[in-house]
């Protein structure tokens, strides 16, 4: 779990201090999109972990109501 936590710490601090790091002269309360650390590898790695969890959940949820047809059900839904 240590790697995930260090990724999160980075994600958190990058998100919170993004405005100060750049020559952003806007106040912190400005448009939230300015707070998104698009280039921070740690933040991206941490985001990918959350997304992986979300995708896992959605696949499992999709499979619940059906029993036999899962394979076919997902035929049109080819993204990973």
């Amino acid at each position, binding site marked *: 779990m240590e*790697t995930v936590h260090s990724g999160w710490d980075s994600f958190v601090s990058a998100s919170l201090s993004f405005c100060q790091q750049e020559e952003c002269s806007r106040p912190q309360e400005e448009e939230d999109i300015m707070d998104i650390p698009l280039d921070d590898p740690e933040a991206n790695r941490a985001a990918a972990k959350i997304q992986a969890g979300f995708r*896992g959940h959605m696949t499992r949820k999709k499979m619940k109501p059906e029993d036999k047809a899962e394979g076919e059900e997902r035929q049109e839904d080819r993204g*990973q």
Partner: protein
Amino acid sequence: MAPKKDAKAPAKKAEPAPAPAPAPAPAAAPAAAPAVDLSAVKIEFSGDQIEDYKEAFGLFDRVGDNKVAYNQIADIMRALGQNPTNKEVNKLLGNPSADDMANKRVAFEGFLPMLQTIINSPNKAGYEDYVEGLRVFDKEGNGTVMGAELRIVLSTLGEKMTEAEIDALMAGQEDENGGVNYEAFVKHIMSV
């Protein structure tokens, strides 16, 4: 409820905990090799588990050749309770091209070491990790994040999600103000 065929470590405990025997670090492949050395992965599943996995695997075989396409591997692992990133799966598949993903197929015997590798992977996210990650966006410290903001993050960072995926994920999760109670959200995510 999660299907009984959840992929678990041999001890059959609640968590797919890191396997006791350290596999020869399949994730840390030597720089020369593009892919993981799957032949070196020790399979530690019980006979019952293998039967369950085989059944799940079979459900995804739409061709009838006892194989599945590369682009189905991630979903089979998810069906079995794992949460691999796309990057992890691509690495296991030897960083395939888009064409490979659609057309190459793998048999169950080839799938097992891939699944074992994912199960052995040490840094899995848990409840606290998700909550901490989402708490970053809780500006008022009141336990909610704006759904709109979450959507932006999910579509611009990491392994970007499509609008359709995000809609499916967030369905029914936003309150009348467009806020998401993220602790409840994470519990919901982890319940399946």
